[in-house]
């Protein structure tokens, strides 16, 4: 590994891998920093080592990743797996940890392809042992062939909810119920956005197939679910909810929560890139053009980190961002960039066409964004409750950074990844203003932990 590259790509998911491929094709020197052991990101996690049985179970959407990873492996880029980025600076220096050492590299361009993370689902009891994110179950299945034993319930909203439920059922888990919190009103509100493309029909067909798998196994699906609560003292024992009109309580060993995914934007906030609030899906995304350029020179974003658009769109945006990098570094001409990007632009448009519909169909229920019960933990790290935050608001604090100082919400190791969005929502709800007016936590390095030893012995790039 060198210390300087034309392009440093942070993330080895579909966007990062595609960008690496195109950037290498254009002749750029590329370094890809992936956090995981194998390339693939979350959607194609460990696809390289997946057994045929697993690939069959997870379906063609997962299998496609194999080709992409294969092509990535065939490029000439430098690839550092298990590299954890802790700092990115405006002068395009990247600080990361690899094999226990802190290192610095510098690019002439940086591409952030850090993907997505789960939206926090702050329901009462969500910190109990036995309550996990839906993607956690997905990871256990994909990487380790581990599934929930005992009674499992999935709760929340979004495409991944049904997908994971059907995968778990197919893998032999006992899924007792799927509690869908998608508000009924979303169905009507999303209809005008249903694209006429064949593509959407394909998507809907997949959804119906999943529902069939779920129903056939005897799993109950409850709709328009409200007032979700995880109950238990030292671990989750039951889940209580209101669905189809009645309040029920169901015994459970594992409760999996999901309320959509949001951009993993810790780095773009760290760099103070301009962000906009995407109200339909209630998350912040960096302001980018079609090439992924942010407001900061030399910094681009591709894939879900720029806005949730799915794996295929991520791949295409990675190609476009790489072409932009090659053009910006004057390795290709504008004419060549236009020529090469044309098919990608077309594909991107197609891959994104279902998004307005999906985003509105799965618009998060406001009740899951602002915990009404004062005892609900908002900041898992520092155990700050919704009630404590509202109390500080009553005392006159107005913004997330002041609230962080006052309550410690956001001060833990996760640095707001699990509580930042909820914090802004609670403040906006209390002050009766829109979230953009409230703002977000200020993010500072290190964005992943680094020891005093590692920092003090790091060789500075100079």
């Amino acid at each position, binding site marked *: 590994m060198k210390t300087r590259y034309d392009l440093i790509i942070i993330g080895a998911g579909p966007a990062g891998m595609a960008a690496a491929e195109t950037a290498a094709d254009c002749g750029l020197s590329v370094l890809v920093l992936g956090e995981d052991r194998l390339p693939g990101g979350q959607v194609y996690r460990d696809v390289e080592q997946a057994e045929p049985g697993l690939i069959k179970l997870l379906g063609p959407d997962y299998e496609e990743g194999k080709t992409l990873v294969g092509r990535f492996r065939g490029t000439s880029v430098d690839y550092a797996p298990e590299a954890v980025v802790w700092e990115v600076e405006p002068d395009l220096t990247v600080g990361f940890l690899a094999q226990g050492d802190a290192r610095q590299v510098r690019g002439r361009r940086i591409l952030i392809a850090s993907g997505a993370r789960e939206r926090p689902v702050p329901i009462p009891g969500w910190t109990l042992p036995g*309550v996990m994110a839906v993607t956690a179950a997905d990871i256990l299945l994909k*990487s*380790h062939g581990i599934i929930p034993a005992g009674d499992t319930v999935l709760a929340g909203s979004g495409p991944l909810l049904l997908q994971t439920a059907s995968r778990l059922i197919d893998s032999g888990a006992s899924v007792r119920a799927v509690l869908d919190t998608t508000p009924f009103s979303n169905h009507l509100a999303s209809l005008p956005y249903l694209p006429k493309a064949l593509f959407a029909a394909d998507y809907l067909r997949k959804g119906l197939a999943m529902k069939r798998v779920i129903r056939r196994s005897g799993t109950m699906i409850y709709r328009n679910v409200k007032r979700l609560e995880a109950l238990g003292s030292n671990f989750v024992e039951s889940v209580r909810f209101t669905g189809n009109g009645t309040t029920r309580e169901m015994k459970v060993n594992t409760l999996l929560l999901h309320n959509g995914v949001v951009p993993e934007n810790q780095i773009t906030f760290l760099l103070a890139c301009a962000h906009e609030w995407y109200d339909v899906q209630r998350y912040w995304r960096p302001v980018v053009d079609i090439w992924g350029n942010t407001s900061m020179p030399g910094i681009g974003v591709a894939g879900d980190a720029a806005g949730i658009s799915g794996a295929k769109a991520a791949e295409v945006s990675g190609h476009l961002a790489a072409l932009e990098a090659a053009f910006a570094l004057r390795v290709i001409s504008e004419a060549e960039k236009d020529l090469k990007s044309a098919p990608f632009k077309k594909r991107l448009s197609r891959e994104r066409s279902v998004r307005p519909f999906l985003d509105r169909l799965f618009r998060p229920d406001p009740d899951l964004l602002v915990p009404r019960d004062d005892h609900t933990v908002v900041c*898992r790290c520092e*155990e700050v409750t919704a009630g404590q935050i509202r109390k500080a608001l009553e005392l006159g604090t107005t913004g997330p950074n002041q609230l962080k100082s006052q309550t410690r919400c956001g001060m833990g190791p996760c640095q707001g990844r699990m509580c930042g969005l909820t914090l802004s929502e609670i403040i906006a709800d209390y002050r009766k203003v829109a979230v953009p007016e409230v703002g977000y936590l200020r993010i500072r390095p290190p964005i992943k932990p680094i020891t005093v030893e590692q920092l003090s012995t790091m060789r500075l790039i100079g």
Partner: protein
Amino acid sequence: MFKRRYDVKGPTVTVTIEDKEITVPASETVAAALLAEGFAYTRTTPVSGALRTPYCLMGTCFDCLVEIDGIPNQQACQTRVRDGMRIKIQKGARDIES
């Protein structure tokens, strides 16, 4: 409450979890091993001593902190098991080790 879909085959390692020797697949992360082996909790929080298990398994939530080979507060989901590894539940805030 988790289980492995299949009997453990392929390369394995022997680790010690809370002083108990256990053989697990070599490709598992510490978090996966702890869940598959049925540990009811993997840490107690420094603020209130509440019991926690991993939540996200992708390095985001920091709930999976455990002590590995004497070094506290390591993310179990980001660490692969290794032969001879000693894993312990993280109990509250760490100590400073001389």
